[in-house]
Structures are given as C-alpha cells and as structure tokens.
C-alpha cells in the first residue's frame, strides 16, 4: 500500500505534548514534530483529536492511521498495536505539597534506568519507602506510572487511580492525597503553572524498563511499512537535532531518547 495521506490522532489536552488553543487549533511538542516528520516522509498529514479513552480501539477500528499523544510504548500496549522508535522520554517522578515532610525525599534530581541500572534504582526505591509508608499516592489509571507503583509500592502506600492527571493535582492540593506520580515533563510544567505554586517535584526520576521506551508513534500492527517510514524520519530528526530543538522549546529540557 502506498502512503500518500495519513491521519494522526492526538488527545489535545496533555500539555506540553499536545494541547488545544482557545480557537480550537492544536499546539504543542507533538504538533510541531508531526509536521516535521511528515515533511521528511513526504506525505500529506492531517491531525485529529480523540479522547484518550478510546484512542487505541479507534486506531484498530481504522478511524485513523497513527497516534501521537504522549503515549509510551509499553509491553502491554505492544500486544495490541505496534510502536515506532521513541521521539521523547522524560522519565517518571513524584510531586508533593509544598511544606510536607515528603519534600525532602532522597535522590531528588537523580535519574535511574530500570533497564541498565536496576540495582541502583531498586536501592533508591528502598530509600524512599519508609517515607511513603501509609501515605496515599495518586496516579492516572493505567498509566506507566501506575504500573510502576503496582510493582514497587503496592502494600507500602494506598494507590488511588484518577482518570486524568489534572485531577490528581487537585486532590494533592486539597490534601486528599499525599504524593502523585507522573511524567517529569508533565509535573514540571504543572508545578510551574500559576495557582499550583504549592506543588513541588520531589524524589528520584525513573525511566525505561517497565516504564517503556518513551513516547512513540502508535500504529496498527499490519502497517509495518508505515512504521518503517516513521522510524526513518524520527532517526533523521534526532540526528539533525530537530528533536532537541523542539523539546527545549516545549519542555525546557532535552527529552531526546538515547
């Protein structure tokens, strides 16, 4: 099959990856990126929005051809769809209320890979466990952070699942939960938001391994040719620094996966 025109879906409500402007147009890291990738692949692209809930079923049902919605490539998702190479990873970390004793969680600012540095990462987890004992942790349902919590902190703390990330922010500020866990990219921008000044990023950052390869383009399994096209384009964009440039613009730090 020859790809002349592809439709890409995004959520449109997950800044800085993707967001909607008041006039309804889209904006964000992935919006800039897909234009660049499509130019490299030499195809015409349209971007549509789709609620997160139905985004994977809609892809398999043929509503569109690709997903770029800050979606991490995880083993579970890969059972259903396939993913391109990653175009961004920020790692997962914690946020707490300003002034709480959890603010001083050890290993702040350190990044652990659950693939290559597993022993160090597990040690770090052991270090923060006593602090989290009996606390309530908020996390988005079925996000990679929730997979992490299920594996390492279940039993230590109570885990509460939210439908969307801004909801656990609210409960953190209201004092219903003590800690939240989400991606660094998300939390750093959320904490910077006016009104969220009582929220601070804390503790170590984790990535890879069960946290997946980072955000990637989701595709139907049978469209291997399309995946190859995306992989090629992403590799080019990494190589010539486009990804770094765009991530500096949107995140304020480099999210280029290595």
């Amino acid at each position, binding site marked *: 099959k020859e790809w002349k025109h592809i439709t890409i879906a995004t959520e449109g409500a997950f800044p800085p990856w993707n967001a*909607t402007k008041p006039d*309804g147009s889209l904006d964000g890291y992935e919006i800039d990126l897909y234009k660049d990738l499509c130019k490299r692949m030499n195809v015409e692209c349209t971007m549509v929005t789709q609620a997160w809930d139905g985004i994977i079923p809609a892809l398999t049902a043929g509503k569109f051809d690709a997903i770029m919605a800050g979606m991490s490539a995880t083993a579970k998702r890969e059972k259903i769809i396939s993913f391109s190479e990653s175009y961004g990873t920020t790692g997962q970390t914690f946020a707490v209320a300003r002034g709480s004793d959890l603010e001083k969680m050890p290993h702040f600012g350190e990044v652990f890979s659950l693939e290559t540095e597993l022993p160090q990462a597990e040690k770090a987890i052991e270090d923060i466990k006593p602090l989290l004992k009996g606390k309530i942790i908020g996390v988005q349902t079925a996000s990679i952070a929730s997979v992490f919590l299920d594996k390492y902190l279940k039993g230590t703390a109570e885990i509460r699942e939210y439908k969307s990330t801004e909801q656990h922010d609210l409960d953190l500020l209201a004092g219903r939960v003590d800690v939240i866990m989400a991606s660094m990219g998300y939390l750093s921008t959320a904490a910077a938001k006016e009104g969220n000044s009582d929220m601070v990023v804390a503790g170590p950052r984790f990535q890879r391994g069960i946290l997946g390869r980072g955000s990637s383009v989701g595709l139907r399994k049978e469209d291997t040719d399309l995946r190859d096209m995306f992989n090629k384009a992403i590799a080019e964009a990494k190589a010539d620094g486009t990804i770094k440039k765009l991530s500096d613009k949107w995140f304020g730090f480099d999210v280029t996966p290595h």
Partner: protein
Amino acid sequence: MSHASFWELMNFGPDGWGWSMMRAAGVTVMVALAGFILGGFIGSFGAWAKIAGNRPVRIAADAYTTILRGIPDLLVIFLFYFGGSLALSAIYRAFGGEGFVDFPGFAAGAMAIGLTSGAQHTEVFRGAYYAIHDGELEAAKAAGMTRMMMLRRIIMPLLLRHALPGLGNIWQVVLKESALVSVTGLIELARQAQIGAGSTRQPFYFFMAAALLFLMITFVSNRVFRFSEAHFSRGVRGAR
C-alpha cells in the same frame, strides 16, 4: 484557586474560549435533538408493540426495553462507534473495497442515544396510554372511530398530556447523555470542557462554564415544555 479570572478565560476574543464553548454547546443540542427524535419514533413503535402487538412482537419489545434500560449507555455508544465501523468495513470489503469505512461520530452518537432513549420513550408512552380514562376510549369506540382516527383524535392529545412531563425528563437525560458521545471524537460540551481543562489546567472554570451552558439549554427547553404542557392540559381542572 487559580488566578486567571473566569471571564478572562471565557471571553469571546481571540484568546478566549467563549466561542469554542458555544460551538460545543451547539453540537450538544444537535446530537441530543437528533437522538431524541429518533428515540421518539422508536418509542412510539415500541409502545404500540407493547400495547397492541401480538405475543412475539410484545416479547421483542420487552426484550428491547429491558436490555437497553439495563446496560450503561456508554456500552451502546461504543458498540455503535467501533462495532459500526467494523461492520461497515466488512461489508465494504465483501464488495471488493479496500481499507476502512468510517462510521461518523455524529451518526454513531445520535443513533446510540436514539436507541437508548427509545426504550425510555416506550415506557413513557405506554404509561401515558394507560393513564387515559377508559371511558373516553370507549366513547370513541362507540362512535365507530377506526384505530387510526382514535389514535389521532383522542389518544394522541390525551396521551401527550400525560406523557409530556415524562418526555421532559427524557429530554434532560438525553441532553446530558450526549456528554458520553465524546468517546466518538465528537467535540460536544463535556469534551470541550475536558480539552480546555487539560490544555489550560483550569478544570474548574471549564466545568463551571459547561454547567452554566447546560443550565441555559435546560432553561430554554423547560420553557418549551411548560408551554406545551399548558396547551395539552386544557380542560383539566387543576388538581387541588
């Protein structure tokens, strides 16, 4: 609470979300209206089947209302949206086509709402029919009216009198059920509020704005229903 004010966010200028929210409210009304009308047709047929149908027809109608009132509406919408596309694609391929056929979100939503509200319409119409005074039907029969004529001249007006409050309730439900249609990618009011909430991280203002718009729609529709109720209740001496 956060610091950008409500009106700053919801204004109608280029940086305001006013127009987007209004447009979404329009979509909500359109989907709800299409679903409600479809449901009305299904409901009249269902009520007829339950009241006057023979045994198999009645059982079918009973099964329809039991199932559709019993399962969450979201499931129906999902089945239409995803199932509909798959089915259409399968048909399309069977005729030699290639790739996917889309089942538009609006149609899926309206049909799903129509199908679920049809079950409620059925019950409302049936209840209203039984509220009609036996004697008034007998008088019509004794005058030799045919079924159709009785339906048009006596049953319908009396039925609407009893059914209107119930229909008002269904309309309210349908209006808000349209919020579920967002899974089909349709940007109606609730989805627009979520998008806005996510994009600006100001969930409150957006949900407040959505609530206010819903209330405005309700206000207008209440007027319409009250007016029609007054019209169809002529001849009733006010109870107490």
